[in-house]
């Protein structure tokens, strides 16, 4: 895998490979010494043009547990008019010797521009770009759904027949987009529940059904309900009249929670607005996977970094199978 830019173009076999390797990674994480030597000598740069402590520390933990050197680069400004250009930042990282760049950027498509511009030879991982995609979030969500459903028997399984309801601001959500593509690639049936103002105007090409009525969607007893974070500034742009009205119509409150079947899981990418899109009852219930998602995120990101840096890129100074791969295979053996 050269880059991980989106789930729209991620093949099913590649997605399954990441999820299965993430299972292996997770196994290593229950050991006393969590650190693997796999990416020793590799440099991973977390290039964040947007504040995101959660995603950044998840990638940082993933890279460090694979023994990579991690550089955190919080860049301000994202255009030619303010601050350093993306091109100059990229070329700086190239000069430093980055092997992989994990990029979070407020502009949709910035990771693709970085990966295809020729400015940099490092592999690029999209850690969330504007309102486009957040592929590792979708992968960790898929991983979480699979794990809850199949437990230790997850390897090699896809999400055929799993029904997932995604609720909230789809228009501005990179999490929603990445999940729509990935979950459907893996065989799940996706339903989007949103206010009509918060879904793109033309989603006819999306492999998902759109409903405006949350109660109708929940009455179908889905396997997973994923609540999206509502950003309060949306309210001022007249997407919906008030927080209270939003919570009433599209929030997962205690009453709605009680009507769900016992094995339906409740997901949230975090950070949560308790009392708005999700009630505390839902967030803290046994069905909630919020913290599992965080834990699984590290395993999935370890898998992605592994595939980017140790998997397929031939090392010019090492013949045949790279030493990194051999080390990882050794680790697999003792699980």
């Amino acid at each position, binding site marked *: 895998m050269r880059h991980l830019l989106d789930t729209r173009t991620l093949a099913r076999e590649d997605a399954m490979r990441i999820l299965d390797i993430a299972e292996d990674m997770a196994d290593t994480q229950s050991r006393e010494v969590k650190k693997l030597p796999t990416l020793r000598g590799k440099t991973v740069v977390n290039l964040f043009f947007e504040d995101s402590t959660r995603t950044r520390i998840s990638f940082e933990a993933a890279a460090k547990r694979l023994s990579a050197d991690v550089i955190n680069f919080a860049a301000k400004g994202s255009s030619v008019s303010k601050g350093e*250009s993306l091109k100059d930042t990229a070329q700086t990282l190239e000069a430093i010797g980055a092997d992989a760049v994990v990029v979070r950027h407020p*502009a*949709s498509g910035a990771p693709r521009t970085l990966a295809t511009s020729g400015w940099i030879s490092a592999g690029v991982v999209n850690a969330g770009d504007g309102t486009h995609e957040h592929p590792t979030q979708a992968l960790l969500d898929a991983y979480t759904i699979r794990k809850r459903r199949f437990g230790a028997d997850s390897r090699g399984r896809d999400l055929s027949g799993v029904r997932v309801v995604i609720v909230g601001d789809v228009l501005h959500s990179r999490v929603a987009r990445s999940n729509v593509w990935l979950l459907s690639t893996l065989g799940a049936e996706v339903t989007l529940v949103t206010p009509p103002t918060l879904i793109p105007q033309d989603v006819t090409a999306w492999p998902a059904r759109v409903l405006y009525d949350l109660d109708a969607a929940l009455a179908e007893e889905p396997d997973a309900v994923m609540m999206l974070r509502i950003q309060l500034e949306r309210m001022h742009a007249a997407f919906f009249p008030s927080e209270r009205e939003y919570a009433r119509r599209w929030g997962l409150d205690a009453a709605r929670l009680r009507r769900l079947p016992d094995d339906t899981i409740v997901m949230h990418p975090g950070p949560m607005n308790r009392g708005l899109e999700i009630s505390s009852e839902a967030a803290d219930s046994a069905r909630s996977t919020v913290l599992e998602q965080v834990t699984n995120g590290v395993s999935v990101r370890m898998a992605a970094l592994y595939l980017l840096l140790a998997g397929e890129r031939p090392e010019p100074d090492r013949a045949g199978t790279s030493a990194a791969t051999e080390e990882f295979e050794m680790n697999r053996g003792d699980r």
Partner: protein
Amino acid sequence: MTESLLFRGAKILGADSADILVQDGRIAEVGSGLSAAGARVIDADGLVALPGLVDLHTHLREPGYEASETVLSGTRAAAAGGFTAVFAMPNTSPVADSAGVVEQELALGEAAGYATVQPIGAVTVGQKGERLAELGAMASSRANVRVFSDDGFCVWDPLIMRRALEYVKAFDGVIAQHAQDPRLTEGAQLNEGAVSAELGLTGWPAVAEESIIARDILLAEHVGSRLHVCHLSTAGSVELIRWAKKRGVAVTAEVTPHHLLLTDELARGYDARFKVNPPLRTQEDVLAVREGLADGTIDIVATDHAPHPSEAKACEWQAAANGMVGLESALRVVHQSMVQTGLLDWTDVARVMSSAPARIGSLGGHGTPIAAGQPAEFTLYDADAVGVFAESDLHGQSTNSPYLGRDLPGKVLWTVHHGYVTLEDGVLADLGESRRPAGARS
């Protein structure tokens, strides 16, 4: 006095083969077997002769943005594309909203000599949309301005628009509207549709263009004024213009070459060369604007040539500037999208790219037939050539063309302006002062 030129065997408007004799800035004779003592004889066998192309919508960037383009570099690009006249949009710095700035623009064009530069005046002071610029002063200046536009911005305030439409009747002016509702396009990045939904780019909905066009048609009808719609881009806009013309409203419309050929699918790689305003639309819109141009609903093709330095495009899509250069590629794109598809013949091309834009802009000395006694403004085009459009085809200062690497038919070989050659067998002429008659302007 310029040298006499005798072009042998050109196909006038793609039809009958004829010789064209140019003397003293005019076409002296058109016919077969012409001869003239002392004339330079040029083999034009099989080349399509078209009247010099006239672009009603060019951004020359000077004064103020000389890093992107100058009047000289922009008119060189024009000559390379077969143009002999360009209308310069007023979004320079300072804005061309006064007699002084439009006269400066005019003088820069005269000094360059590659094409007539006809300034367009801003509708409102500083293009801010708040109060009318001195339209009358610009009209009666040496630049003789007849087209007014806030292009880049929409004259959004309906009362200002009404007043502008009314006011320019005093000197037979026309308001060229950039139809874009600003509220409906806040932060807009790409045509609102399936592609913007997937790419997570804020949509630029067709309705933001169409609602302004509909309003302006009604305003123009109400006050009995001329309205010109810039770079119309949607199927719905074509329908509105068709409806307005049927009602007898004095409206004209233009479409750009890129809206005749390209769609929003090209944005998928986030390559900002395809970022333009109004945005590339869908294939359905492309087919509708082609049909509108073919049936006369859309009057003209105008380039919206918009040069930008490379750093304004080599960045994130959202941070990139809107616009594409288009002068050098316009005829070839129209050839591919309209002529090769059988929708227009070369007579129609001469109308939509030369005579009609000159008429809409009230520009004398251009858009005239290739006939004895007419001004010597024409271009010769090899319609049989085929080639990959490359940076070497660009002659302005910027290279933000969406066609680089794309196969386009044809090649512009000769351009004659004011009776002298500006493009010579595909190569820009070096215009020494001696070859450029002082104050040459029709």
